[in-house]
């Protein structure tokens, strides 16, 4: 169960991007988060695994507080949170299998990581998951030789390798063509129910949100303004979320996030 309460994120002295957000996700529900660009969807997701440092508030995963974790504790918490990205974020020059096994980096020793000597159980699990999404025949191919949909499958498997307690997906279909993106959404939906895994998906495409998720959360200007079942997500809700916003394709908070993540590496 994920409980977010009163989450605030502010970059520098600007207006807060998240203004006291509350959200609870339990069980194996698939929740989509919709909203115009710059509404704070991406920031919220990144606050959960602390790629972005929240300014204040509380995020609890299965009872454990995630805010204020440091060093090794933070890394152990991140192992339990899988994440899928818009740009797949694969390591292009490594093989598919190495990318998949990278999901175990939080568990194996540095020596194992460098020599690629992962435990047999990890390799079994990797093959099993790759079979499940239909990419195991690519195991030794380089990641940059795959098509977009296949790459996103690799990224999903990588996240699942972590044995996560929750899966975050940040615009997982925005870089894919319509048919492939439906396949990926369907995959996320069925994986969630197979593994009884809660999934949080940021998404632009409202039709897909309605079709593949159990619950829709609408955000605008860092606040939650809709929370309900897809059937209740009507034209009024749509207007409230997107109304008066010119281009939903621009990503406002992007540069700030880049900056934050760079600090996190350093």
């Amino acid at each position, binding site marked *: 169960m994920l409980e977010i309460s009163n989450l605030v994120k502010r970059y520098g002295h600007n207006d807060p991007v998240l203004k006291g957000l509350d959200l609870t996700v339990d069980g194996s529900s698939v929740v989509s988060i919709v909203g115009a660009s710059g509404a704070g969807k991406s920031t919220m997701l990144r606050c959960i695994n602390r790629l972005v440092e929240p300014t204040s508030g509380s995020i609890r995963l299965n009872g454990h507080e995630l805010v204020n974790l440091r060093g090794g504790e933070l890394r152990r918490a991140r192992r339990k949170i899988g994440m899928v990205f818009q740009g797949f974020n694969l390591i292009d020059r490594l093989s598919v299998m190495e990318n998949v096994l990278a999901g175990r980096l939080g568990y194996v020793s540095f020596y194992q990581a460098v020599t690629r000597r992962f435990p047999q159980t990890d*390799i*079994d699990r990797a093959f099993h998951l790759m*079979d499940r999404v239909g990419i195991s025949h690519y195991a030794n191919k380089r990641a940059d030789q795959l098509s977009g949909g296949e790459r996103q499958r690799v990224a999903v498997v990588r996240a699942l390798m972590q044995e996560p307690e929750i899966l975050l997906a940040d615009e997982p279909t925005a870089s894919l063509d319509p048919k492939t993106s439906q396949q990926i959404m369907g995959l996320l939906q069925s994986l969630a129910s197979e593994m009884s895994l809660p999934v949080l998906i940021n998404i632009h495409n409202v039709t897909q949100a309605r079709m593949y998720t159990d619950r829709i959360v609408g955000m605008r200007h860092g606040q939650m303004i809709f929370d309900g079942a897809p059937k209740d997500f009507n034209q009024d809700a749509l207007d409230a979320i997107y109304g008066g916003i010119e281009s939903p394709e621009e990503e406002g908070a992007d540069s700030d996030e880049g900056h934050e993540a760079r600090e996190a590496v350093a």
Partner: protein
Amino acid sequence: MTDTRITPGRVWKKQPFIANPWLRYGLLLLTLTYLYWAFSTLPFNWERIADGLPRAARIFGGAFPPSFERAGLLWTGFKESFQIAFLATLLGVMLSVPIAVMAAGNIAPKPIYLLGRAIIIISRSFHPVIVAILFVAAVGFGPLAGVLTLTLYSIGFVAKLLAEEIEEIDWGQVEAMRSVGAGYMKTLIYGVFPQVMPRQIGLSMYQLDSNLRASAVVGIVGAGGIGGTLMNAFGRYDYDFAFAILLLIIGVILLSEGISGWVRKKIW
């Protein structure tokens, strides 16, 4: 649709960097053999090397604090280095223009092109220090040998890059000039040079900077400038003076790198 049970025991190993095992181990063996061969044939004088650490201590002990007392000598040395670099850049850049035109395949006839390329290749094949030592032998010690060396060095570098730049120009502008009836020289001046001018100025600045660096070095074999002063200081065990020269060289190089970078940024 899926088999949800995990099938254990499937093996996976990282694909080796080189797929063919013979080639892989062959290369490894080759490398090791080479290293053994290289180390065993090189003449190391271990006794003299063992003597190195106390010597290093003595040298660095003697080098601190660096002595700037002979400021007059420092000034003449650096002044001469700068003069050599400046004259050589000027001559080199001017000479490199016709040579670059000769060596540009798109505007020069074949025999001329080959001649131009040959000049460039010859002036590039030797390290400036070797060229300097030959010029010193031919025209005697002093800055003249330095100027000649660095002129040749500049031609090799500037003419090569300029020729490449000319080969990449927008051909439409040349055709336009030809179509208004301009002759060969006029086409060059109106159709070619304006396109490569910013690049040429940038190259000249870059070359002035690298000539300044090189002028400190050619002096070591007697071609004038601060390098000679440095060599003398080392030869007379004046380590505090040598260290002062070294520090100044580093300072001057950083300064000239900064200025040359700034000018190139302004022009581009």
